[in-house]
């Protein structure tokens, strides 16, 4: 029975996923080993990863991958035994092996084919490494437990005597299946011999007191019969003698066992008691290497893998539930029925918990993404001929999984940028009194409902003047405009902006940074940049904790409901019309002794109707600053399931989505960051033209 094609396909898919995971583990182990060559745990990890790839690969037909993995695994086996030392050459070759296996897997899925010369070359490197430690053993043909198809078709006769050891059943052996298998090879009569049976009182239920003999007619050869007993050869006496061929006249359907089977038969030429195990239970069985598995490995057994589509479905449903529950709450309030109110409160509580749990399931620690970058930095700095090192912090910080997936590329680009434009060559650094090895530091942490990811390097920093000149020459800012250094730094996110005359291979043509910004904003996040010339640059990404459901503040503007993301909000204050006029267009207010600039949402959203006498400013933290947003009225908190408005409304910058309220009406969700930017830009414009 062969695996049918559907099972094979599925198996191949599972193997691809599994191999990718194992490759990740291998890479991680190698990076750890590079930093701490004395540790044994990473060697074991690397070995196990290769071992699994080899084993599973061959089962599903990935012969090239399996064969190659086998060679590398053998070398690591030798490292485990101490025959080969961990060396930079070994690590480098192993990292290349990792890449090769990855490319072989991708070639199988339709990616570009792998040049056989590359495989040969790498194998050569490994042979050089294992050198005197001996030839890596070639993967032998799998041990076949069924015998070669019998060459003979003529019927033969065998006299068989099977005498199991008394304790044979102690290791789970069952006699019946063995006898059944033996008899299925041909035809004959099987006889159990009971002469060794003790009296009942002396009988041990788990001991075997019987033995069997038979004369079997079969067209197989002796080895096939022996194979039946392959697992028990050490635990029994098996006598096998081939008798003369079947002769018509002698067809032994007799009930009497024929004479050749007498107990004292002439010494069967092929009889043998399997020699006592050559290695008598060796007291020095291979000692297990002291396994101090790090605790995070134990956790792995308690996890279940769930396809992310299933999770997405669950989150969607929870979102719908939250919406329905909000309507229920509103209805209960209107009906003013006490029982219904109680029930709707209960449901609200449960829904909230369900929502939190569902959101939590999608949270994944960012640490594994960070670790991938260590390799990137190592390889890149080698290529660029400078020395740089990546350090990380806060890897246990959790983010929504889809967000992590979408952050990978922007982060890569930012890091590449640091290495390419930020970190100076070692000699230059030393001249400036900096350590020769540049530092790129990745950190992640939670702060007030957001996740902050920062990339900091200790390179040459940004030159504000240079940026200004470039921006002016490109017409991005009017000449002579007063922009703070931070605002100038922010210009690098503008499309088509690049101060490096020479476009390098790695970072490209300044296309990168604006794409980074857009990607982050697509995640409803924001990018900030700060720098100190000569000292370094820090880029900070501020991201929401989750994409799908947020807590929002419901406000009213010009009679219509809008939602502001609650996480940023600090407080609400009243603004009388007098106060607004008094500030004379400068749009600042005094909030508890502090000056807070504010944005007129009516203006920003172009709702120019009569202003109510009293308005409210919702003070929120946006991009590290406190900014007020002026609304007509604050209604209250509202759990918001964010629904996208769809492609046709993509161009609406100030709106990040919409939500359905309890009464069924739709409220737009405002993007506070965008609103602030928009207001700043128009303020800059107004300032230049004089006071509006």
């Amino acid at each position: 029975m062969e695996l049918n094609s559907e099972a094979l396909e599925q198996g191949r898919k599972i193997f691809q996923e599994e191999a990718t995971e194992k490759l990740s583990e291998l890479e991680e182990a190698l990076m750890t080993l590079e930093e701490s060559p004395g540790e044994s745990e990473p060697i074991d990890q690397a070995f196990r990863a290769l071992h699994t790839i080899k084993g599973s690969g061959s089962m599903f037909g990935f012969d090239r991958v399996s064969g190659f993995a086998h060679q590398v695994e053998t070398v690591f086996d030798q490292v485990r035994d101490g025959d080969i030392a961990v060396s930079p050459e070994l690590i480098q070759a192993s990292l290349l092996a990792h890449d090769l296996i990855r490319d072989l897997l991708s070639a199988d899925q339709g990616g570009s084919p792998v040049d056989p010369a590359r495989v040969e070359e790498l194998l050569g490197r490994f042979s050089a490494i294992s050198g005197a430690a001996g030839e890596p053993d070639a993967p032998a043909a799998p041990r076949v437990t069924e015998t070669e198809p019998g060459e003979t078709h003529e019927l033969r006769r065998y006299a068989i005597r099977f005498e199991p050891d008394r304790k044979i059943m102690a290791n789970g052996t069952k006699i019946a299946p063995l006898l059944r298998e033996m008899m299925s090879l041909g035809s004959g009569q099987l006889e159990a011999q009971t002469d060794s049976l003790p009296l009942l009182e002396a009988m041990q239920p788990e001991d075997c007191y019987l033995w069997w003999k038979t004369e079997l007619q079969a067209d197989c050869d002796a080895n096939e019969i022996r194979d039946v007993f392959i697992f028990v050869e050490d635990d029994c006496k098996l006598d096998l003698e081939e008798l003369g061929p079947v002769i018509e006249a002698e067809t032994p359907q007799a009930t009497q066992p024929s004479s050749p089977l007498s107990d004292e038969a002439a010494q069967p030429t092929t009889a043998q008691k399997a020699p006592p195990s050559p290695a008598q239970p060796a007291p020095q069985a291979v000692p297990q290497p002291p396994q101090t598995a790090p605790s995070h490995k134990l956790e792995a057994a308690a996890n279940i893998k769930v396809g992310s589509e299933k999770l997405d479905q669950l989150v969607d449903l929870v979102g719908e539930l939250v919406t329905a529950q909000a309507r229920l709450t509103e209805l209960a309030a209107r009906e003013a029925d006490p029982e219904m109110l109680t029930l709707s409160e209960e449901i609200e509580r449960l829904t909230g918990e369900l929502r939190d749990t569902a959101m939590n399931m999608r949270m994944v620690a960012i640490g594994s993404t960070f670790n991938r970058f260590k390799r990137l930095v190592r390889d890149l700095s080698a290529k660029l001929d400078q020395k740089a090192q990546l350090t990380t912090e806060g890897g246990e910080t959790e983010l929504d999984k889809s967000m992590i997936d979408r952050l990978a590329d922007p982060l890569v680009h930012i890091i590449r940028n640091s290495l390419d434009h930020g970190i100076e060559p070692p000699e230059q650094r030393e001249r400036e009194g900096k350590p020769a090895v540049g530092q790129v530091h990745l950190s992640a942490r939670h702060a007030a409902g957001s996740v902050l990811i920062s990339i900091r390097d200790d390179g040459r920093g940004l030159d504000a003047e240079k940026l200004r000149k470039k921006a002016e020459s490109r017409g991005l800012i009017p000449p002579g405009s007063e922009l703070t250094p931070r605002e100038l730094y922010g210009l690098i996110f503008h499309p088509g902006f690049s101060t490096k005359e020479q476009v390098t291979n790695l970072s490209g043509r300044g296309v990168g940074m604006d794409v980074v910004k857009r990607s982050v904003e697509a995640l409803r996040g924001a990018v900030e940049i700060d720098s100190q010339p000569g000292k370094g640059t820090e880029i900070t990404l501020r991201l929401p904790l989750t994409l799908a459901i947020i807590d929002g503040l419901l406000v009213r503007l010009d009679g219509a409901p809008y939602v502001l993301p609650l996480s940023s909000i600090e407080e609400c204050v009243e603004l009388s019309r007098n106060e607004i006029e008094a500030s004379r267009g400068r749009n600042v207010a005094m909030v508890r002794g502090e000056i807070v600039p504010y944005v007129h949402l009516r203006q920003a959203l172009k709702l120019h109707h009569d202003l109510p006498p009293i308005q409210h400013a919702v003070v929120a933290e946006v991009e590290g600053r406190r900014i007020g947003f002026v609304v007509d009225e604050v209604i209250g908190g509202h759990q918001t399931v964010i629904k996208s408005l769809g492609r046709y409304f993509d161009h609406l910058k100030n709106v990040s989505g919409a939500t359905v309220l309890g009464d069924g009406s739709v409220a737009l969700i405002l993007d506070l960051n965008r609103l602030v930017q928009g207001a700043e830009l128009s303020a800059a414009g107004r300032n230049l033209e004089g006071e509006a």
Partner: protein
Amino acid sequence: MGKRILTVDDSASVRQMVNFTLSGAGFDVLEATDGSDALAKVQGQAVDLVLTDLNMPNMNGIELIRALRAEGDTRLTPIVMLTTESQADKKQEGKEAGATGWIVKPFKPEQLLAVVNKLL
């Protein structure tokens, strides 16, 4: 047939293949990802045969075999080790720990069935 087989392997693809092969032949298949998981599963249900890889994190195959032989319910349950060519010494060690038989990776579905039929 209704006999229940527990397959223990940290590789999802091996488990999938074993599961498919054996359930196709009418067996009820349980899966475990490593030794501790396996021990937990046999507490819950009676098992007629255990198929285990040797190289697993947490508790490896040999330790699992010993643990199974020490448990009342599984003392006499047939246990098959999954080994590779390079692990001849493991086979011996496994036997001493109490394994009933072995099968060498990589194996084909029919080889797996042949071994299982030998023991059940």
